[in-house]
């Protein structure tokens, strides 16, 4: 009886959820007025081809800024929790095969991450995805050459400064429209040039936001991975 209790509870909850969501989340194909507006006018209003990026970095840019703040907070929290730990000196450096493989893989990942961040307004991708790929590079560096090598290359302090740089750019772009009397985070409406849709320099502030997020997310996630790799006494 006690063993099957969680199963019964889940079954009951499942029934309730099917009942609750049956006519909204679980069935139906209509698009809805707001999303339809984005589809119809997104390119004209924001100047970018990738409409998901248009929503993320223009229509709902405040969400995205807060989301990068969530990553920042998580990185700061992990850092604070792991503060007393030290890097294992001896650890690191896998087999020779991995050591030779990874340096060949690295340029590829670097190019891919920058591509994701730069062309996020034209093709799938964006600053977040690019930043996460870049942070994986630092894991690979640690795996291949040990924590010491990665530490000397880009120290945690440098990463914190890069986080501040990315965050600072985000805040400046958010507040800049106030100078001309527009609402915070206004893009085209505040006079930023939207450019020719489909070209690299289009979408006003969108590519800049994307790059700032790229730097910030890469720094934050590699700080998280670095802190978690440290060892207790």
């Amino acid at each position, binding site marked *: 009886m006690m063993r099957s209790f969680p199963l019964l509870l889940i079954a009951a909850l499942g029934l309730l959820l099917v009942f609750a969501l049956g006519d909204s989340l679980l069935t139906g194909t209509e698009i809805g007025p707001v999303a339809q507006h984005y589809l119809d006018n997104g390119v004209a209003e924001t100047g970018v081809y990738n409409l998901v990026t248009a929503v993320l970095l223009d229509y709902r840019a405040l969400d995205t800024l807060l989301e990068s703040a969530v990553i920042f907070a998580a990185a700061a929290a992990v850092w604070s929790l792991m503060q007393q730990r030290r890097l294992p000196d001896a650890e690191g450096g896998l087999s020779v095969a991995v050591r030779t493989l990874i340096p060949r893989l690295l340029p590829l990942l670097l190019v891919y991450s920058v591509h994701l961040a730069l062309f996020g307004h034209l093709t799938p991708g964006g600053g977040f*995805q690019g930043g*996460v790929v870049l*942070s994986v590079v630092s894991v690979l560096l640690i795996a291949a050459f040990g924590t010491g090598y990665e530490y000397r290359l880009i120290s945690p302090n440098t990463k914190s400064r890069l986080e501040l740089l990315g965050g600072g750019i985000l805040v400046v772009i958010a507040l800049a429209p106030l100078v001309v009397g527009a609402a915070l985070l206004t893009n085209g409406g505040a006079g930023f040039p939207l450019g020719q849709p489909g070209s690299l320099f289009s979408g006003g502030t969108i590519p800049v936001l994307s790059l700032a997020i790229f730097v910030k997310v890469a720094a934050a996630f590699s700080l998280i*991975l670095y802190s*978690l790799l440290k060892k207790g006494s």
Partner: protein
Amino acid sequence: MTLAIILLYGMALAAALGAVLASQRLTAVVLLSVLSITLALLYSVFHAPDVAITEAVIGAGVVTAVYLITIARTGGDTG
């Protein structure tokens, strides 16, 4: 196409069940990254390439790395 999608559904559910029921943490982590990759494939079927890239990079990449590090730091595979 239909068959492939149903296969992916089945794979996602099986990987999730396996990850929840697995007795070893390492098995569960591997199944979690299988779940992420399956979901990434499904997202591209559902016309969401942005979400697919994110799920692959985060779910199968960083999150798996974080799990592996944690398992190594909390006494290997005993839980």
